[in-house]
C-alpha cells in the first residue's frame, strides 16, 4: 500500500478538533486505497469522467502576441477551458467521486471566488449527491454570477457573516459544519490547504494539469519548458501546474501571489492589504496545517486583501510553503493595478478573458519581461491559465472605472 504524505518539511500536519480526527483517518485510508492504489478502478473512473464531463485534456497553445511582445516563447495551458471555466473541477470531481466511493451521503464545501463552489455544485449534481456551499457575504456580493450558477445546479448556498466575510471565514464555518455532520458528510476542500491528507490529495487531483502540460510541451517544442508560471492563493492551480515538474530541476517554477494594494502588514488594524503569504508570511498554524501565514506578532490571523476573491486568503498550501523554503519554487507578487492591466492585455491581445486570479500570472510576465530592465526567463514559458474571467466582469468594470489604466477599453457604448 502506498503511504500518503502528512508533512512537507516542517509544514503540514493535522491540527484539527478531535471530533474530526476519525474522519481524517477514514479519508486518509480512502485516499491511499482509491487514489494512490486505484482500488475498485477509482482512478480509471476519475480519468474517464474528467474526459467526458470535464472536457480534458485541455490544450497547450502558443500565445503569439505575448511571445512577440516579450521576445520570449510563451505557451498557455488552457485550464479556463475545463468545464465550469476553471481548474477547480479537477479537484471537485475527484473528491465528490471519492466521497461516493466512501459511502458519504452529503457534500459540503467552502468557496472564495465561487469557482470551487460552482465546480463542486456541478460535480455533485453530475454524481447525484446533495451539496451545500459556504461563502462569505462579501464574496457573495463580489461574485454574483457564480452564486446563481451554484443555485441553478441545485446546491444550497449558506452565507457566512462573521469577520470580513471572505474565504478564511468560509473555511472556518465549513469546518464547523463538518465537525457536526462528520459521520455522513465529506468536506470537499477547495485547495491544497487544510489537514493531511487534503494538501497531497488535492495536489494529486490537480496534477493532471502538469502531467498534460509536460507531455504537450515535449510534443510541441521538443523539450521541457524553461519556466512554469502560475498564480497562487491557496495554491491548487499552482501545485497542479508544478507537481510533475518538481523533479525536473531545470524547470523554473514561479508562484505569483496577490500583492494587493501594498506589500506590508498593518498590525494595528490587523489587516494585510495583500494575500502574499509565501512572500511575506510567517510560519504558523491555521485551518489544520502548519504553513506560512499573514499574522500579527501575537499569532492572530490577519485579514488579507486582493482584487481577486480567489487569491484573497491569509494562508497557503503547506507543500508550496516548503518548496519555497527549499528554493525549488520562487515566489513573486503582482498588485491589484498590474493584475487589472494584465487582465485587459490578455483579453485584447490574445482573445482570452482570464479570471482576475489568473491575470496575476500575466502581470508577472509584464513586470519581468516588459520593462527596459527586463530580466530574461528561461524559455519556453508555460503560463497556467487557471480560469476564465466571465465571473469577474462586473468587478472588472467597476475597478477599471476607478483607475486610469493605459490599456483598458471604455464602456461608453452604454451612455
Amino acid at each position: 500500500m502506498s503511504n500518503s504524505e502528512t508533512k512537507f518539511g516542517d509544514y503540514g500536519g493535522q491540527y484539527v478538533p478531535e471530533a474530526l480526527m476519525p474522519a481524517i483517518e477514514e479519508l486518509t485510508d480512502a485516499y491511499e486505497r482509491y487514489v494512490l492504489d486505484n482500488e475498485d478502478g477509482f482512478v480509471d473512473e476519475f480519468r474517464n469522467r474528467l474526459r467526458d464531463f470535464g472536457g480534458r485534456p485541455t490544450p497547450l497553445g502558443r500565445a503569439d502576441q505575448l511571445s512577440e511582445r516579450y521576445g520570449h516563447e510563451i505557451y498557455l495551458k488552457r485550464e479556463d477551458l475545463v468545464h465550469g471555466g476553471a481548474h477547480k473541477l479537477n479537484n471537485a470531481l475527484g473528491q465528490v467521486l471519492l466521497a461516493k466511493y466512501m459511502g458519504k451521503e452529503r457534500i459540503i464545501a467552502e468557496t472564495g471566488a465561487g469557482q470551487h463552489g460552482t465546480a463542486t455544485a456541478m460535480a455533485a449534481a453530475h454524481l447525484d449527491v446533495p451539496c451545500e456551499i459556504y461563502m462569505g457575504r462579501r464574496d457573495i456580493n463580489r461574485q454574483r454570477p457564480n452564486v446563481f450558477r451554484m443555485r441553478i445546479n441545485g446546491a444550497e448556498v449558506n452565507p457566512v457573516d462573521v469577520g470580513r466575510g471572505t474565504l478564511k471565514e468560509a473555511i472556518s464555518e465549513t469546518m464547523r459544519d463538518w465537525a457536526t455532520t462528520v459521520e455522513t458528510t465529506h468536506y470537499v476542500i477547495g485547495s491544497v490547504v487544510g489537514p493531511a491528507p487534503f494538501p497531497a490529495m488535492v495536489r494529486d487531483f490537480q496534477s493532471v494539469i502538469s502531467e498534460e502540460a509536460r507531455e504537450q510541451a515535449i510534443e510541441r517544442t521538443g523539450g521541457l519548458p524553461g519556466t512554469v508560471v502560475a498564480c497562487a492563493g491557496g495554491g491548487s492551480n499552482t501545485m497542479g501546474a508544478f507537481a510533475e515538474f518538481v523533479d525536473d530541476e531545470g524547470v523554473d517554477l514561479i508562484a505569483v501571489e496577490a500583492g494587493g494594494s501594498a506589500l506590508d502588514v498593518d498590525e494595528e488594524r490587523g489587516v494585510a492589504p495583500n494575500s502574499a503569504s509565501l512572500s511575506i508570511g510567517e510560519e504558523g498554524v491555521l485551518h489544520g496545517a502548519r504553513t506560512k501565514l499573514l499574522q500579527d506578532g501575537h499569532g492572530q490571523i490577519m485579514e488579507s486583501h486582493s482584487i481577486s476573491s480567489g487569491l484573497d486568503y491569509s494562508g497557503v498550501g503547506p507543500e508550496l510553503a516548503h518548496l519555497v523554503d527549499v528554493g525549488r519554487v520562487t515566489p513573486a507578487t503582482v498588485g491589484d493595478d498590474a493584475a487589472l492591466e494584465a487582465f485587459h492585455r490578455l483579453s485584447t491581445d490574445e482573445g482570452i478573458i482570464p479570471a482576475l486570479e489568473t491575470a496575476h500570472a500575466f502581470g508577472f510576465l509584464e513586470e519581468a519581461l516588459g520593462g527596459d530592465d527586463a530580466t530574461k526567463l528561461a524559455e519556453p514559458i508555460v503560463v497556467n491559465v487557471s480560469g476564465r474571467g466571465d465571473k469577474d466582469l462586473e468587478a472588472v468594470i467597476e475597478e477599471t472605472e476607478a483607475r486610469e489604466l493605459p490599456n483598458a477599453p471604455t464602456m461608453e457604448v452604454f451612455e
Partner: protein
Amino acid sequence: MSSSDRDDPAKRASGLEAAFDEPAFVPYLAAGDPDFESSLEYVEALARGGADVIELGLPFSEPIAEGPTIQRAVARALSSGMTPERYFEFCERLDVDVPLVCMTYYNLIYQYGDEPVRSFVERAAAVGIEGFVVPDLPAEEADLLREACDEFGLDLIFIVAPTTRGERLERIMAQVSGYVYVQARLGVTGARETVSDHTAESLQRIAERGGSAATDVPKAVGFGISSGEQAAAVVEAGADGVIVGSALVDIVAEGDETGRPTDAVAADLEAMARELKEGALAGGQRRPRPERT
C-alpha cells in the same frame, strides 16, 4: 514517538485532579469579554458561585471549534484589546482561589516568545495557570506541548469526541492529565435544551478502552450544558464534572448588549454558577457511590 517518562501518568503533574474530589463545576469565559475590568469581575463571580476549575479562554481570531455564542465573545474580547501578554496580566490580577486552565488555539501558543510553545508554557506557569485545553491540537501533534507541560508541571487536557473510539481513545488516554474533556455531542460549542444521549455511551467507552487513566483521571463533560438539571443528569450518568461555557457567555453577551451594570451581570453569573454547582452535587447524590476513591 514518546519517551517512557511521558507515557507514565505518574510522572505528570496533576494539580487539577483534586478539584474533582466531589462532582465539579468547570465554567468557561473568554478573558477580556467584553472588556478587561468587567471580565475580571465576571470570572471572580464564577469562583464565588462555586467553580472548582475555571477554563479561561485566550481569544484567537479563527476559533474553528466554537459556535456563534463563543465566536462573538472572542470577537468582543479581541476588539477590547486582549492579547497573550494582557491575558497573562489578567491571570495575575484575578483574585480567585480556583485552579485556572488556559483554553486557546495552537497558533497563539506557538508564536509566543523566543522558543515556540515552551515560552508560552513557562509564562503561563509563572502566572499560576495549571493546565491547557487546545481544541485544534489532537494528540498526534501535541508532543511539543506535552513536553513543555511536563517540564513546568502543568496538565494537558485532551478532548474525547463522540467519534473517538478504539486505538485513538487509548492513545489520548495515555497522554491526558488533569481531566478528560468529554465532548457530549458532535459539532461546535453552544447551549442546548437537552443533554446528549452520547454522554453515558462516551463515558462507558472511556471506562472500557481508557486503561489505567480511565479510572485515575477525572472525566468532565461539556458541549451544550445550560442548566442545573442538565448538570445533575450528566453527573448522574457518571461524569466527575460538568463544563459550561456558552450558557454563561450568553449572560455576559446580554449584559453587554443591553448596557446592564457590571455588578448586576456578575450577580447573575454567580447565581447561574451556584445553580450549576448544586446541580452537579445533586447528580452525585443520585448515583451509586462513585468507583473513584
